[in-house]
């Protein structure tokens, strides 16, 4: 049993956001959120021999960036919680190999960032750690080869597909300092509504996102209007439409407050049919755009709901449908 309704934890000691850092590839940097990112790559190989190495360097840079931004050193960090999309989460563990910080590897596909933040906040709230980094990354070229086809193969994207974000983001949580805190977190259930098209992940994840948000509102007794924004991870344009339809069927009108990181990160001219996706999508957008506006006071409360499609290439080939998950983390700004 959670301490705040069925699936929600309310953090008594208000774990603080000490810093956030985002680093993105060239395509993301030419999108509408460019002014908010902390670092932009000119080439997406980041000067490395393979794209896997490049993603690892991205991940490491995000963690180091957040630590430096908070005026700390790696020695000050108690736990590094991280995840990514590659098999056996090699990006996060290979980054941790270089960092000399105790490591907890996480995986819930593109929802990993929400899971990491929730666990990080729990560790701090329970008094088990004082400073925790929560990081995730993804890379278009590593995800393509793992889930889809070689880069140079002349295929078309289907109308419902999304473009994996090249980028990494890290949030540094601590037990004191800063005026943005993690207020509560709702742990999502794995939900499968029977979507089987691996190129329609927005539709596969929307039910999980809707269920988590409904449960969060139920557990906390809040209305949608409590939040300035309910921010889903990477439902994309079409997935967001389904998400809002599902909430409508529950009598919840969220269109006015809803934003989706996947929808925000690219614009229509960039030819990504439904927007961005990937474990790095919600983390780069949260650590840039949302933290920036929260720090400035323009946004006071958000519910971040990173969404994940828990499929593998193998499960798709074996004809399995795609289960989705979404974890919600509520951030508030203290005046």
């Amino acid at each position, binding site marked *: 049993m959670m301490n705040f309704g069925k699936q929600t934890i309310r953090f008594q000691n208000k774990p603080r956001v000490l810093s956030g850092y985002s680093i993105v590839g060239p395509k993301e940097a030419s999108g509408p959120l460019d002014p908010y990112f902390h670092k932009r790559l000119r080439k997406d190989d980041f000067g490395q*021999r*393979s794209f*896997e190495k490049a993603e690892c360097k991205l991940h490491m840079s995000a963690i180091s960036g957040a630590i430096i931004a908070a005026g700390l050193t790696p020695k000050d960090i108690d736990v590094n919680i991280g995840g990514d999309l590659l098999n056996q989460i090699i990006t996060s563990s290979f980054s941790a190999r270089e960092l000399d910080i105790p490591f907890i590897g996480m995986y819930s596909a593109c929802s990993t960032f929400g899971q990491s933040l929730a666990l990080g906040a729990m560790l701090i709230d329970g008094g088990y750690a004082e400073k925790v980094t929560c990081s995730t990354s993804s890379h278009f070229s590593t995800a393509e*080869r793992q889930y889809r*086809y*070689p*880069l*140079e*193969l*002349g*295929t*078309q*994207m*289907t*109308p*419902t597909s999304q473009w994996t974000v090249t980028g990494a983001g890290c949030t540094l949580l601590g037990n004191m300092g800063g005026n943005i805190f993690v207020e509560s977190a709702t742990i999502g259930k794995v939900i499968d*509504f*029977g*979507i089987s098209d691996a190129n*329609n992940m927005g*539709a596969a994840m929307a*039910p999980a996102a*809707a*269920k988590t948000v*409904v449960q969060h509102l139920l557990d906390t007794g809040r209305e949608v209007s409590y939040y300035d924004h309910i921010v889903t991870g990477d439902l994309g344009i*079409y997935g967001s*439409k*389904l998400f809002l*339809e*599902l909430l409508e*069927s*529950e009598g919840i009108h969220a269109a006015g407050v809803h934003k989706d990181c996947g929808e925000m990160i690219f614009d229509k001219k960039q*030819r990504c*049919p*439904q927007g961005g996706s990937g474990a790095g999508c919600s983390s780069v957008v949260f650590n840039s755009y949302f933290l920036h506006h929260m720090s400035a006071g323009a946004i006071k409360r958000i519910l971040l709901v990173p969404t994940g499609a828990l499929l593998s290439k193998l499960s798709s080939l074996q004809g399995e449908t795609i289960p989705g998950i979404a974890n919600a983390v509520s951030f508030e700004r203290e005046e």
Partner: protein
Amino acid sequence: MLSKTQYLELDKRIAPKSKEGQTLWIAFLVGGAICMIGQGISDVFSLILPNADEKVIGQITSTVMIFLGALLTGIGVYDRIGKYAGGGSIIPITGFANSVVSPAMEYRSEGVVFGVMCKMFVIAGPIIVSGVTAAIGVGLIYWFIGVL
């Protein structure tokens, strides 16, 4: 909340669809252009080698087209054509070259043997298998007809 069946129906109804009115035309034009280039190459070789058999000219043309497909893949152009043309650039023989060269390039980071050599036919493999199987089937039918 909507039931699974209602949700799947909703997805089927409102999911964005391919704009076939547009994509079919581009595929037709690009595919046609590739075939015209092939025909042009064939005509040029017929002029250079006036005594050559038609079959030999066909083989030379295929070789040149495969080379061009592989070259354009190698310099990163073929996938860009493919993004617009879809089936128009997948179906001609240049598309077959693209499907062999692109995994060979992609997996070179895993070494020559387990990367390039093993993965080279990861996409083209099924086409070869179905081609050979179909050829055996058709061959057997011809043979039976011959026997009868």
